[in-house]
């Protein structure tokens, strides 16, 4: 089949372009399975990053980001649907560059998902975090997450690489996710993006 696309300035014989595809030079619509939902970049005065009104149309969620704290010590933590009750449990496997160990984060008002680069490290350094929130819209089970996270400072301050697992003891569908660093402010250019994965 021959496809013609006519320009507004042309006639039936001029100003037309011949195509051999029905796309006629346009980009094909591809219904993707991995979709970007939202991105938040810290301005330097942000104590938390929240993804709200999360569509319930995906199977899983993934959060990808980089972060820095102005101080040392705080962890990157997660809360769902604004729940700040003692409904979270975490455990982890970790390397600090010299010792490998496993631990339990206990039962808390948040789940541990990583560490930002501490404030004493070079201003250009950022941590890396990838969080998978599985079956987030299901209302029949508690919610589990896996986090792969860490930072390295070229041995100038410290460095950690961690695998975290979290449990949110609620069967509610997740409609919002808040990341924070335990009362500290995210340093400017800390950034997190939320993605939806279709099942």
């Amino acid at each position, binding site marked *: 089949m021959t496809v013609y696309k006519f320009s507004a300035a042309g006639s039936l014989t001029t100003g037309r372009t011949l195509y051999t595809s029905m796309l006629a030079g346009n980009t094909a*619509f591809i219904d*993707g399975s991995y979709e970007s939902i939202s991105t938040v970049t810290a301005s330097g005065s942000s104590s938390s990053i929240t993804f709200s009104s999360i569509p319930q149309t995906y199977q899983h969620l993934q959060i990808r980001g980089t972060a820095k704290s102005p101080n040392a010590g705080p962890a990157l933590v997660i809360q769902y649907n604004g729940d700040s009750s003692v409904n979270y449990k975490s455990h982890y496997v970790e390397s600090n*560059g010299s010792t490998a160990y496993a631990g339990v984060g206990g039962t808390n008002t948040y789940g541990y998902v990583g560490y930002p680069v501490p404030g004493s490290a070079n201003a250009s350094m950022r941590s890396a975090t990838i969080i998978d929130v599985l079956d987030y819209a299901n209302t029949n089970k508690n919610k589990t997450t896996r986090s792969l996270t860490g930072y390295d400072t070229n041995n100038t301050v410290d460095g950690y690489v961690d695998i975290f697992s979290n449990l949110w003891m609620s069967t509610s569908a997740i409609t919002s996710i808040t990341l924070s660093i335990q009362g500290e402010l995210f340093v400017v250019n800390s950034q997190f993006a939320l993605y939806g994965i279709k099942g």
Partner: protein
Amino acid sequence: MAITYEPIATQTISGSATSTLTFASIPATFTDLILASSGSNSTLSDIKIRFNADTGSNYSETILLGSGSSAIAARGSNTTGLNHNYTNTSIAAAISHIMNYSNSTTYKSTMTRWNSATSTDPYTAVYVGQWRNTSAITSVTVFVGSGNFVAGSIFTLYGIKAA
């Protein structure tokens, strides 16, 4: 809807001896890059990555390994590349996430998971790495420490685009 998770390029090792390959002219239109590989080496060796052809000692990483009998922590400082995998003629798989690669404000952070099933050095590993350079990443070079990639080894670079 625009494609969010998109293959940029794939390189498959042919029969000729190849010890290095490069993904060049990487579009700056994505947010993160992912390098996924499945392959093997002619001899037991690291497989490493470099950015923008930087061969200087501008890389570092913090390491967590499982050997099957123990958990191991380690650190590499002022190195000339970041570890992507470690294997011999046994097939090994690896995924390296290169975060926020096109920004020109921060150093570049990476997260790598790999596994190798060699009979003498079987490991599962996770690394966090850093390239101390604020330049946007425009090329990724993959190279072996010694020997060559075995024919059939495959490396694919993906781009992830945030909203």
